[in-house]
């Protein structure tokens, strides 16, 4: 089934009434969270592309990043823009919708239809806001696993994603190893670093400092902490780029002027660009979701319950891994990926690893980077062969 949506001019509330497919789980099927709380009823919104084959062996689960969503390869109903991974997903693309059944769900705690702080709490009829339980990467993955169960899929052919999506891939591979035939954690880490937690805290404090946040109750008050969330996004956006990319794109160029105005206007192109990024973000994302999801990333430390020995998280794993990092990514630098590779080696797992040369920073995993596409294609096709799935002859091994 292929779903196509057009941007809704009436700005339908995608958090409560998503235009995606939704799997509902009643109060009798609560989600047991890592914090000990139980969430229910709950829902998970998802998009699906391509056809599930008869023996259900061709399903790929794509995991989105912090502010991503399930609209991976269709027009986004909120922004009206293309899906976030259209370079990778589609007919004849590396994640080939002609051959694979591709699922992407909105993560738990987000705001595009899966239960999150903007969803209505059945107990009060009001948005959860900060009464929403703090969720973790593992909770997100467990929610996805319930969806995969409901779709009747036992083993996923591949689980793939970048950044926070990559964390979910690692969690899948560690805690549902037998259900993951191949895994592609991209531009990610097995634990969030102190520096990354620090950046997240700046973002959260910016949101909370906005008077329109109203201790999280802004939806009841009819306001939105737009300024705070925009600042959070601006700070975060810098971490997604690289010094070289900023220089290449903007340098010290002035915005629509030839000299400084001796004011605090956005004189520089880079300022104007960041302000635009901030504004665009608040129109599509819920501020409380931003708090909860950044928290989930902060808490991620896959090795922790294995006495801080990451290799133990993967012992006995028969999953085929392909790990990629980017040279100019300083948010999830190559050494984070190498740590995963070394752990997988130590666990005797099958692992491929490529560091891709680019100046595009962390965002490279979302962009049209030829080596990213080629490596993915090569890995997926060879894994498909190993899984007994058809591979087009034109892409026979050279």
């Amino acid at each position, binding site marked *: 089934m292929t779903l196509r949506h057009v941007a809704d001019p009436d700005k339908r509330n995608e958090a409560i009434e998503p235009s995606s497919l939704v799997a509902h789980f009643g109060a009798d099927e609560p989600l047991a969270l890592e914090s000990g709380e139980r969430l229910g009823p709950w829902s998970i919104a998802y998009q699906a592309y391509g056809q599930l084959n008869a023996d259900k062996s061709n399903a790929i689960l794509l995991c989105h990043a912090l502010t991503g969503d399930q609209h991976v390869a269709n027009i986004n109903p909120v922004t009206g823009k293309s899906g976030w991974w259209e370079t990778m997903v589609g007919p004849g693309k590396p994640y080939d919708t002609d051959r694979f059944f591709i699922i992407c769900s909105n993560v738990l705690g987000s705001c595009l239809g899966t239960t999150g702080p903007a969803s209505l709490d059945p107990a009060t009829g009001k948005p959860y806001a900060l009464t929403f339980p703090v969720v973790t990467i593992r909770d997100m993955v467990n929610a996805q696993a319930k969806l995969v169960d409901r779709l009747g899929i036992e083993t996923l052919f591949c689980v793939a994603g970048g950044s926070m999506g990559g964390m979910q891939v690692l969690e899948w591979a560690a805690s549902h190893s037998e259900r993951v035939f191949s895994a592609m954690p991209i531009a990610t880490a097995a634990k969030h670093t102190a520096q990354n937690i620090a950046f997240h805290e700046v973002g959260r404090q910016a949101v909370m400092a906005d008077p329109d946040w109203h201790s999280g109750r802004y939806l009841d008050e009819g306001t939105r902490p737009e300024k705070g969330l925009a600042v959070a996004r601006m700070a975060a956006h810098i971490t997604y780029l690289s010094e070289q990319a900023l220089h290449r794109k903007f340098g010290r160029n002035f915005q629509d002027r030839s000299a400084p105005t001796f004011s605090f206007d956005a004189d520089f192109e880079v300022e104007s660009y960041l302000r635009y990024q901030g504004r665009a973000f608040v129109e599509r994302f819920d501020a409380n979701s931003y708090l909860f999801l950044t928290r989930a990333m902060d808490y991620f430390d896959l090795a922790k319950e294995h006495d801080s020995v990451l290799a133990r998280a993967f012992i006995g794993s028969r999953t*085929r891994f*392909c*790990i990629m990092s980017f040279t100019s990514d300083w948010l999830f630098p190559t050494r984070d990926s*190498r740590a995963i*590779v*070394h752990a997988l*080696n*130590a666990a*005797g797992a*099958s*692992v*491929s*690893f*490529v*560091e*891709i*040369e680019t100046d595009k920073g962390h965002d490279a995993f979302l962009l049209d980077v030829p*080596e990213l596409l*080629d*490596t993915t*294609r*090569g*890995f997926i*096709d*060879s*894994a498909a*062969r*190993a899984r007994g799935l058809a591979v087009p002859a034109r892409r026979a*091994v*050279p």
Partner: protein
Amino acid sequence: MSPLEMNADAAFARVDLLNLVSMVEPGSRVLDVGCGDGSLLRLLAEKRGVDARGIELSQSGVNLCVAKGLSVIQGDADTDLVYYPDGSFDYVILSQTLQAMRQPRVVMEHMLRIGRRAIVSFPNFGHWKIRLQLLATGRMPVTKNLSYSWYETPNIHFCTIKDFIALVDEMDAEIEQASALDRFGRPVEMTLPRQMWNLFGEQAVFVLSGK
């Protein structure tokens, strides 16, 4: 280079690799250090049904390997072997790469630690043509197989077959199998006694084990 020469080179490469493949027991676990485009790993998987893994420095090499479905990681043998646990492979292979290592001895020690056996192949700097070139011209030898000038060569630690055997002795490792190859990739032991290998072997292949 004429097509004929190219074929001869390809044939040599093939014979060299097939020679290595023949030394590996079917169904074993193999790590190829410096696996290039994955040709050897692929032959090992096809001919011997081995669980083949690799490490390769160049991104282009890794990409070619991954596209072939091989489990290869981008990494540096000089720094990354330390992360492999003891005895995790049946064979660790270093094919034509020993001379490019910063620390050949350390690399070989890791190979013997990680694998039950280590297979090392290398160009023999003791070959008579190389000796003759140095003697006759007084300049660093440049041959068809070793085509770099001294200032740009990645081959920073050349050795002769005798040197290699001395190092193996020093490391207290055991030579289980040895072979020297002529310029066509044919084993010279068919026609020459072992003492002559250092003079007439262009390449050498050793299978080692720890004691």
